[in-house]
């Protein structure tokens, strides 16, 4: 070996970054990330992209079919709903609600779940018992029934949907974090940190948390798809965002009355839900494959 090879140091490369590289190699997962990105762009740039005002009614265009069917009009590509509103524009604006709720609920739930899970797993004892009982109780309720009950109590509205979903959603990251914390707190480097005078806060935030983030990220993405479906379900039941604000769930519900004569009113928002949820699921499976050593070859 020459001097040059001895002093050569590879570029800093954390486990996280290596995992990310694995993820980028997964083509299917990358494709679904692109689909997700398209939806995100739709949310951010809705006013620029949408061809029409999503709430502009026009009774002359009532139940106008998509452009490629007789009676269609290329200015209204996906047709119009029962009040003559442009379906494409409403889907673009509806993406805002779905993605906003998905992201906010997951961020909220993951934050709370990390705090509760770390506390339960690190302190054990009565903290663990109390948090564990709350988790068990919440898990005992069927999710949708729980959310419907809460919505009925709090009344509809954007903030209330977020709260109704987050109230239960935090349980999932909490259990993941607690389990991982239990394993990591016994490792030698945590003991080493204690031997160097580290306090509980430092050990939880700097020693344990960075080492358990991978499974938390994976679980949170998987759950985001679930939250989006739940939001659509609540909106479908009329407990979600109130009209005239466009939401995919309420659009499907609106089209239900005309499903035989005007299938497009329900079908296109339904397809949007399927596409987004599928993209998130595939992407999160790619994440799991890349980040979870049990799934990587």
């Amino acid at each position, binding site marked *: 070996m020459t001097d040059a090879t001895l002093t050569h*140091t590879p570029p800093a490369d954390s486990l996280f970054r290596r995992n990310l590289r694995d993820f980028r190699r997964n083509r299917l997962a990358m494709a679904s990330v692109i689909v997700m990105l398209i939806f995100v762009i739709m949310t951010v740039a809705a006013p620029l992209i949408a061809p029409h005002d999503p709430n502009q009614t026009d009774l002359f265009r009532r139940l106008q079919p998509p452009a490629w069917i007789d009676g269609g009009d290329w200015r209204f590509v996906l047709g119009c709903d029962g009040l003559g509103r442009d379906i494409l524009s409403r889907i673009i604006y509806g993406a805002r609600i779905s993605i906003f709720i998905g992201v906010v609920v997951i961020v909220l739930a993951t934050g709370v779940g990390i705090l509760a899970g770390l506390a339960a797993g690190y302190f054990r004892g009565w903290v663990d018992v109390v948090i564990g009982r709350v988790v068990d109780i919440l898990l005992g309720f069927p999710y949708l029934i729980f959310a419907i009950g809460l919505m009925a109590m709090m009344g509809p509205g954007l903030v209330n949907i977020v709260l109704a979903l987050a109230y239960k959603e935090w349980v999932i990251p909490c259990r993941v974090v607690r389990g991982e914390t239990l394993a990591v707190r016994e490792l030698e480097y945590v003991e*080493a940190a204690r031997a160097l005078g580290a306090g509980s806060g430092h050990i939880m935030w700097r020693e344990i948390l960075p080492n358990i983030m991978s499974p938390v990220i994976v679980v949170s993405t998987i759950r985001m798809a679930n939250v989006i479906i739940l939001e659509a379900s609540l909106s479908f039941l009329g407990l979600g965002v109130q009209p005239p604000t466009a939401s995919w769930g309420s659009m499907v519900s609106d089209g239900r009355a005309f499903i035989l004569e005007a299938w497009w009113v329900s079908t296109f928002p339904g397809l949007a839900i399927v596409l987004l949820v599928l993209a998130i699921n595939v992407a999160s499976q790619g994440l799991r494959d890349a980040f979870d050593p049990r799934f990587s070859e």
Partner: protein
Amino acid sequence: MTVLLEVTNLRTEFSARAGLVRAVDGVSLQISRGECLGVVGESGSGKSVTFSSIMGLVRPPGRVTQGTIFFDGRDLRGMSPEEMRGVRGRDIAMTMQDALTALNPALTIGEQLAEVLVAHDETLPTGRAARRVAIKDRCVEMLGLVGIPSPDSRLRQYPHEFSGGMRQRIMIAIALACRPKLLIADEPTTALDVTIQAQVLELISDIRARMGMAVALITHDLGVVAEHCDRVMVMYAGQVVEEGPTEDVIGHPRHPYTRGLLASIPRPAMRGQPLTPIKGQVPNLMGLAPQCRFHSRCPLAEPSCLVEVPMLSAGPGRRARCLRLEETV
């Protein structure tokens, strides 16, 4: 030499399902400033637990139930958890047995070094930029001290990018970052291969001489002790069985257990002859009767040994826990 650490009659117990396990039973020890004490004994003899107890790191179901610990004139057992945190890392530092798992895999070496400094070093400048520069300088200095080439660029690397010997050195660098008065090196060489072992031990001895730091070297290797320690303490089944200056204890062991340990080490002079193992098993630490703990394996044992044995004087600066010392002169 003034006494730095003085432990008297320390007892640490673990409550297991089957009963109380006394892992450390009446251990007394002293370490002077700048001294290196070797702590020898087989697995489960209570070496590591003794020092975990001193650092206040024993967690439930374990408990220190008895004894006094004075460090630098301060009573460690009487301290609040916060005060104790200030002592750990700054005054007493400890390196862990397994260097391969003792560094946090998610943080860079630089971050881990800096954290100890930030936690304990009050001499750092208060200005933000000056502070960052000072921390960086100290980190580079510490890595240089433990012999890591091009420390500047290596600060940004993660533990998995270093070899086992390097990681052991880094762990020592982290332990030494605040210039502790006492370093507890818990089997610093077990996870390393022989050539690296020698380097790491040499490094510890070297730094000890330069920084005037005391070292407690926990090991089960008497050869390591002979080479690096001023005094040695032999532990068996949770008790100290012999202590004294290294040369005297190794050259002329008085306790039958120490003799057995030394007889079981291969020597070039004894090539071709079988080794002499110590017969029998370490006793179960649960519910031990108050009697000599080595008697079931001892070649000198007699019925009169079945009583509680105190540490007896065995010459200048030496003590041993055996009633039949006159037979081992």
